[in-house]
């Protein structure tokens, strides 16, 4: 396997494992939620994450790549850097920040010249769902702002944004050689 293909295999494995981890997390949160509109959306969110992991598994299979077993998911770093969220508002604030990071990362990936159509279609399908995730979470956070106060919710989002920025920079440093495949020919912002 040449260098580019190995990098492609690694990053697809990372996306796949990140979606699996997201599904497992939201499965637990959805199971704890009392009935209501947030429970419905959380359950759909959990189902989407699970489907996304399936899309990546399927795409890798079509490309002839075996998924790499990774020790850690990208999300693990959030709990270390941002602390454990302990109520639904905090979970949603963290997820809001994380989902935006995911959309940005996929947007970078889409800029790769001559991107394989299988990868392109997989990202397009996933990003549609991710946009809905950001939308429903923003709506839910507005309702939590009535309960906790807008200031408290915004502070929590800012807290996780700061954590996200440091995690992402660390991630880029740690995996620089592997990520060159994504960023070499794209504008990094």
């Amino acid at each position: 396997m040449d260098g580019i293909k190995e990098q492609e295999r690694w990053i697809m494995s990372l996306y796949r494992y990140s979606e699996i981890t997201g599904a497992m997390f939201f499965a637990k949160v959805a199971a704890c939620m009392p009935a209501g509109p947030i429970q419905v959306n959380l359950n759909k969110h959990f189902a989407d994450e699970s489907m996304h992991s399936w899309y990546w598994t399927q795409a890798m299979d079509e490309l002839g790549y075996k998924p790499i077993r990774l020790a850690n998911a990208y999300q693990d770093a959030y709990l270390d850097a941002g602390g454990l969220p302990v109520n639904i508002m905090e979970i949603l604030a963290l997820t809001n920040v994380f989902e935006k990071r995911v959309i940005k990362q996929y947007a970078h990936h889409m800029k790769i010249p001559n991107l394989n159509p299988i990868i392109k279609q997989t990202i397009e399908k996933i990003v549609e769902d991710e946009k809905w995730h950001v939308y429903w979470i923003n709506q839910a956070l507005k309702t939590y702002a009535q309960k906790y106060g807008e200031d408290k919710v915004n502070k929590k989002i800012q807290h996780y944004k700061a954590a996200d920025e440091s995690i992402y920079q660390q991630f880029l440093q740690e995996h620089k050689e592997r990520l060159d495949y994504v960023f070499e020919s794209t504008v990094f912002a």
Partner: protein
Amino acid sequence: MQPQDIKNQLAEFTKIPVERIDDDAAITDLVSDSFMLVEMLLLLQDHFAIELEQEDLEEVISVAQLVNLIDEKITAMQTA
């Protein structure tokens, strides 16, 4: 009675017999991973009709500290 009730809930969630849950044990030792810890905290809040925030848990390491925190939250709810 309240602290015992809280420990009973910890036992029910973790499936560890309550008499084997040591007050000095780290709460992270009761669960296999951080996702399970989040789940346990959400269920405790739901069961006792209280609300925890990230800041509340900053100093909480042991089972006894968690039980005290929840006990205080329940008392505050009852007296509010």
